């Protein structure tokens, strides 16, 4: 967001009545009322049951469809009204959360109650688990983006890093029949794309977005080529990667709902959550983090203070590649064998999650979960024969990000030096 528009200047001088909070609040009120009216009228009187298990059985919460749709819509509208009334800024995020959850629940009450008889239930364990599984590559990818972009290198090559990680993980994992070796190879594969990104953008000053796009195509072509030449003819030798099995965490995995959904995952799930915490702490609490952020905001100043700008950028870009490479391996070393273009645009959703999460690790996690939820919801809705086209749910992450960058849901601001090559002197 380096472009300063006339609006920015005007806002800075005269805050006015329509602050960001009020605009978002007005939107939430509108959305909530529409949800209550529309979803309420479309919902049936049948109960919408949300079960805490993988099927229709077990403990559950049941809500009358119409009642639930209207009620949750009104809750969202109320949260919006509170924002409109001008509460303090620190209430903004919680109230926005309430509004979003309210609209989603209102929508779900309609959909679940309108499902064919016998299917009026939503197995929450499946939903939560699916959300995390679908969000995994997004979390890794978005963290890779955080590492790169916080130090001032735009990372559009997340897609390529994920793909290369998935490919190397599958290839080396199969050839050595060892998932751990595969994991290391995946990290190195992602780092290879990162290395190209770093050398060409930092050393040769190629435009970072250009390089990212080209590297995506390079990774797509390279993995596709080797897949067709090696993996397809001799799958047993090159493309039957070993799997990391699920590791239920003792005690925690016995928790209701969260236990089976969150604490019975595989190593990648735990790794992703740990990485979010580690990178968050490292970025905001350590010397490395301070230096990274300063290099991303004002490299000249950082250089003046003795930070080795280019070395730090090299290191962070390589680290990012390793993180993304592991994310790619979360496909091939846990779920599927490698196929051509198997990432299929997840890298770009990860980029969206990074931006939607405002370049922070926790924000990226939440955005990735939101996008994963949208993805999982599409699967669920098609399973209950919903009349909502899954394509439109699949568009949701992209549209949400579009709204975010357009400043409709608050201002997103990239690190100031993001995308600018640093030339000393």
């Amino acid at each position, binding site marked *: *967001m380096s472009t300063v528009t006339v*609006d920015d200047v005007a806002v800075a001088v005269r805050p006015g009545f329509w602050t960001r909070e009020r605009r978002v609040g007005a939107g939430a009120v509108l959305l909530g009322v529409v949800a209550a009216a529309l979803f309420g009228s479309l919902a049936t009187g049948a109960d919408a049951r949300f079960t805490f298990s993988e099927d229709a059985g077990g403990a559950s919460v049941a809500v009358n469809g119409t009642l639930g749709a209207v009620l949750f819509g009104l809750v969202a509208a109320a949260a919006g009204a509170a924002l409109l009334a001008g509460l303090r800024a620190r209430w903004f995020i919680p109230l926005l959360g309430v509004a979003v959850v309210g609209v989603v629940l209102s929508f779900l009450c309609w959909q679940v109650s309108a499902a064919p008889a016998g299917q009026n239930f939503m197995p929450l364990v499946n939903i939560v688990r699916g959300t995390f599984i679908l969000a995994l590559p997004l979390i890794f990818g978005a963290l890779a983006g955080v590492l790169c972009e916080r130090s001032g290198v735009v990372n559009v090559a997340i897609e390529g890093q994920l793909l290369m990680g998935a490919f190397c993980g599958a290839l080396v994992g199969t050839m050595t029949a060892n998932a751990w070796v595969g994991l290391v190879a995946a990290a190195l594969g992602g780092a290879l794309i990162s290395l190209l990104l770093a050398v060409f953008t930092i050393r040769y000053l190629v435009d970072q977005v250009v390089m990212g796009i080209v590297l995506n*195509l390079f990774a797509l*072509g390279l993995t596709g080529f080797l897949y067709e030449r090696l993996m397809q003819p001799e799958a047993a030798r090159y493309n039957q990667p070993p799997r990391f099995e699920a590791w239920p965490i003792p005690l925690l995995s016995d928790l209701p709902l969260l236990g089976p959904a969150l604490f019975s995952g595989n190593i990648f799930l735990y790794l992703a959550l740990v990485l979010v915490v580690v990178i968050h702490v490292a970025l905001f609490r350590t010397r490395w983090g301070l230096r990274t952020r300063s290099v991303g905001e004002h490299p000249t100043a950082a250089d003046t203070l003795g930070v080795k700008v280019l070395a730090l950028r090299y290191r962070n870009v390589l680290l990012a590649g390793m993180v993304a490479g592991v994310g790619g391996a979360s496909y091939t070393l846990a779920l599927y064998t490698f196929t051509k273009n198997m990432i299929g645009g997840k890298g770009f959703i990860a980029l969206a999650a990074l931006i939607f999460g405002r370049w922070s690790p926790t924000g990226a996690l939440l955005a990735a979960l939101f996008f994963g939820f949208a993805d999982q919801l599409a699967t669920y809705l098609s399973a209950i024969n919903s009349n909502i086209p899954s394509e439109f749910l699949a568009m949701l992450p992209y549209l949400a990000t579009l709204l975010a960058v357009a400043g409709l849901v608050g201002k997103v601001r990239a690190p100031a030096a993001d995308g600018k090559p640093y030339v000393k002197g």
Partner: protein
Amino acid sequence: MTDVNAPGAPAPRSNPDREHTEAEHTDRAGVAGDDAPEPAAARASGDTPTPADQDGTATLLRLFVRNLWSANTVTVTVLAVVLALVIGAVLIIVSDPDVLATFGYFAARPSDALTSSWAVVSDAYANLFKGAVVDPAAVRAWADGTGGWQPVFAPISETLTYTTPLVFTGLAVSLAFRGGLFNIGAQGQATIGVILAALAGFLLPLPPVVHLVVALLAGALGGAIWGFVPGFLKARTGAHEVISTIMLNYVAVYFLTWIIVQDGVHAPDRTDAISRSVDGSAQLPRLLGSDLRVHLGIVLAVAATWAVSWLLDRSTFGFELRAVGANPDAARTAGISVGRTYVLVMVVAGALAGLGGSNMVLGSTASALTPLVVAQIGFDGILVALLGRVKPWGVALAALLFGALQAGGNRMQSYASVSLELVTVLQALIVIFIAAPALVKAIFGLRAARAARLQTSMAKGW
């Protein structure tokens, strides 16, 4: 540097002193003060001026040879292609288990490894050439009357067919580049273009010529709408066009997969995701008979190249566009509406990409919508624009190269069983090397030259 200059015509060294000054002189002219002249290297270049050949032709020739091995646009491009082909050859070798096996006993019999490597690589690249330019066997057959003329021109026809959409998307990307915008959304704009062109192609009952024009305009309109959104957002809210166009690409893809299966669009007699076919009256006529696929689109592509070139160099809008691209603040100070220019640039670029998309369904590639109907033309268009140095005629030539690689790649895949994906790798590698001329310069020891740097360094961040 001494080695690479050896091909220069060897002439008797009669006057070293004089040669020195002469070399320095031309060096300065060619290099334009970019690098310090290197007398030692220059002396070794060999074309010693003797008093006898001090005439104009010799100087011109010498200048030509000297400039040939400098990091100018043409040399860097050619060497980038060569480098890409070399890396591609390595990939072909290491991915062939049989050839790789011969490397197992390389120390014992290196000839095995070398001949088998040569065989597999030359087979692949020979087919790449035969599929893209001309197959000598077809020429021989035509000459002695056993074959028709069509097989001779089939490779060219294929090349031009693949070139056509790339010209449009390449122009769409470079036009935006010149206006200071990085249009990654050519893919999405082409997608919406292909949808509207196809809808107009099978929903509207119109007479032949009118139908085609309407379908093309519909495609351009679709692309223009999809270009307008990021342009408008950029102008009004400062939303970075790279992000918004990436997002819109995916929205367009999902819209395409959705609309294909809607009633009235979906082919009634099919169960898979494919739409009805475009009416014959809305299809671009083929130029060389029904056996060869090249169609009117290539003529339109050349016309579009000319139009964009005129727009950029001769029109008021083109001037404003370039001014905004060079320095938006200065342009604003000079009274140019930057926001309006951004919107217009994206609309025109989108319309071009939309036309490129229309070619995918109105041309000979396909006649119905499928989820993959647009292929990669938008992303390839970015590479084409970069390779063409974001100049209209450069883009056309770059599209021709990429079209040739694509056409040749098809033959390579079916005759030499080397996957078509190699073409994607080659294309990406070529552009990587183009984008970093300093690297090519270092690898081949080129002399520095003006205008070698890719003039597209946006480097403005998000």
